[in-house]
């Protein structure tokens, strides 16, 4: 069921015919005034068509492309395939290789870090003298004392009474 406004617009555009036209014109309270208004509307329409032509689109190809892309992305179903048909996720083989390479790099870095520990790396334990003795025949009066110096971080075996030797024994 068309409203009066729809029938009025169709009548002005000349699209009402036959029974509809007769029925609509019969329903108008003042047909002459309506005819005058119809003529004015048609004159105005012709005037606008003549003086306000449609602007030609300079980049219609680009505009169409953008529009198609937008429609495609809006209607795309999320899958493992990208829009151009390529695979989005890496294949298992490549993932394995990337993982193996990462592990190898990690091992290499760890190796060099462990290797390049500072030269001052020291045990937390002092060296120990477990036992010591001198030849009682060669040095019968010799004595032995052991020291562990935590301050100097050295262990010293101190002997006294060993037989003295001449200075030529100091040669290389």
């Amino acid at each position: 069921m068309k409203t009066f406004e729809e029938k009025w617009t169709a009548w002005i555009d000349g699209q009402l015919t036959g029974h509809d036209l007769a029925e609509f014109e019969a329903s108008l309270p003042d047909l002459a005034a309506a005819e005058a208004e119809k003529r004015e509307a048609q004159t105005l329409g012709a005037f606008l068509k003549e003086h306000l032509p449609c602007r030609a689109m300079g980049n219609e190809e680009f505009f169409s492309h953008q529009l198609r892309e937008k429609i495609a992305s809006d209607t795309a179903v999320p899958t493992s395939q990208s829009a151009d048909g390529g695979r989005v996720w890496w294949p298992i083989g490549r993932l394995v290789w990337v993982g193996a390479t990462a592990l190898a790099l990690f091992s290499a870095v760890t190796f060099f870090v462990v290797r390049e520990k500072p030269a001052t790396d020291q045990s937390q334990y002092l060296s120990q003298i477990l036992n010591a003795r001198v030849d009682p025949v060669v040095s019968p009066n010799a004595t032995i004392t052991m020291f562990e110096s935590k301050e100097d971080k050295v262990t010293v075996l101190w002997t006294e009474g060993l037989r003295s030797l001449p200075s030529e024994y100091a040669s290389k």
Partner: protein
Amino acid sequence: MQRRSVLLLGLWLALIFGGVQARGSETVWSGLVIANNAPKPEPVSSELTYLEETLKDWFGYNQYKVIGQSQKVLVTGSEDWLAQSKYFSLHIDSKEGNDKTGYRVKLKLFQESNLLLEWEAKLSKGRPIIVKGPQVGDGQLLLLLVVQ
């Protein structure tokens, strides 16, 4: 693909065994040193630099000259070697029973063929053992051992 697998495997093996080797082998420096007082003392050799002050504190001399030395890389931990000068020799025998606290070594100091002193020790890394030996002329023979 197969070539890359072999390369990667080789790299890993090299890293693993290289790491084991780097951790497993340590060097023992052993030296025969003559300490004495000199009007113009010579600078100590590089092996003694970090011990110079300790030696001066303990023995009071101003000059420390290395007259014999050796460096031994311990691989199996059961090795023996010698540091010697013209008249002295220090025989070092690394024994079984090494653990994380150090290397167990048996040492003998000879003056030519005479055994002067023998002792057994447990050497810890970076913790030197200093032995005061016999008087030699106006100086003193010292024996040094350190795991570097």
